[in-house]
């Protein structure tokens, strides 16, 4: 792979061409916050947390969907980016009904960790308190729309890794919801194979296995990355 010279946070680096800014930063130990990124899955730039400043470009670009180019001067830790990350994090909490104290993912939740990372102490936006359903129709798993942040990691893992394409997104704006098949209850889905990959891909407590209580949830998203990499090795 040809090497190109870039500058990230005033550090000069020789990096592989053809990779995304996020990949390069992770390889070089530069921290970038993400929610919708799961290594191995296609990046969609949905969460807007990985925004970076690039010299010569007026707007912030998402690191996960922007390919690195020669002589790029990238900044990842500016005040502007931090401000936007704070806004994004607070909007996540204001958009749905996130109640950590009763959540299965309490203590192991990516959204909770994000709150700590951005040092969120209050939410400046009015809570929407939307009416959200909890789908318990599946024999083993539960889908709780209250805790969903629409990262679409479950949608992508189901389509790209399992190949079942049970999940998708319906409606638009603040009415968006994750659906299985024709918005049928999960348990009645004809495409779901009950493989459980979406359970591990979900960064919050929105999809979880039944018969666990508050704070007991164990998720292994790295298992999905490993699976994808091992499949590539076989080829």
């Amino acid at each position, binding site marked *: 792979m040809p090497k190109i010279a870039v500058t990230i946070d005033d550090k000069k680096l020789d990096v592989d061409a053809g990779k995304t800014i996020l990949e390069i930063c992770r390889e070089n130990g530069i921290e970038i916050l993400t929610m919708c990124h799961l290594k191995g899955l296609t990046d969609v730039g949905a969460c807007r947390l990985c925004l970076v400043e690039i010299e010569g470009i007026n707007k912030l670009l998402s690191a996960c969907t922007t390919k690195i180019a020669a002589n790029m001067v990238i900044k990842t830790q500016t005040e502007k980016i931090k401000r936007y990350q704070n806004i994004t994090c607070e909007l996540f909490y204001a958009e749905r009904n996130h109640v950590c104290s009763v959540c299965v993912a309490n203590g192991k939740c990516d959204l909770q960790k994000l709150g700590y990372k951005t040092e969120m102490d209050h939410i400046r936006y009015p809570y929407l308190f939307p009416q959200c359903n909890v789908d318990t129709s599946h024999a083993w798993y539960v889908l709780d729309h209250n805790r969903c942040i629409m990262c679409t990691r479950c949608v992508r893992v189901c389509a790209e890794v399992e190949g079942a394409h049970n999940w*998708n997104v319906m409606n638009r704006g603040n009415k968006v919801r994750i*659906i299985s098949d024709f918005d049928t209850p999960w348990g009645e889905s004809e495409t779901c194979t009950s493989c459980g990959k979406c359970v591990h891909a979900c960064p919050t407590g929105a999809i979880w296995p039944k018969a666990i209580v508050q704070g007991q949830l164990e998720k292994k998203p790295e298992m999905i990355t490993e699976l994808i990499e091992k499949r590539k090795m076989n080829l």
Partner: protein
Amino acid sequence: MKTATPATDAALAKDPRLKLIAAKIKKENYKPDALIEILHTAQNAYGYLPMSVLKYITKQLHLPPSRVYSTVTFYHFFSLKSKGDHTCLVCTGTACYVKGAQAILNEIENQFSLEPGQVSADNKLGISVARCIGACGLAPAVVLDDEVLAKATAEEIVNKINAKIVES
């Protein structure tokens, strides 16, 4: 792979509208990319997208059901509920509003007890509003089925709707 199941064959024989969709799917070569074009055909044939038709299209195109459903719910053009045999769309853009679009809507509500977005119980009439249909010179504009009525009055609209309902 491309043969229809016996159940859909029977439905095909009965429903000429489904035949139209089947022809469109064939014309598009069963390409999944043609989903939106095929949904357009279905929407025009039925006036909305019944679940049975969505299932038929899904099967024919070999698409995941969730993909079809997300496409249908994303675009406002597609509707999962019947809009009524006859549709009356009242423009409530600024020009039409000033010229008395609300009076027309009030009269429709008085006569047919229907608010914008509602469909009558017998499915004969559906009322909807649009922000602006781009015909401000014709204000207040009303679109009855596919006919644009310029400088409409409440009385005239009610009469025309009644005529349409009697006709069918």
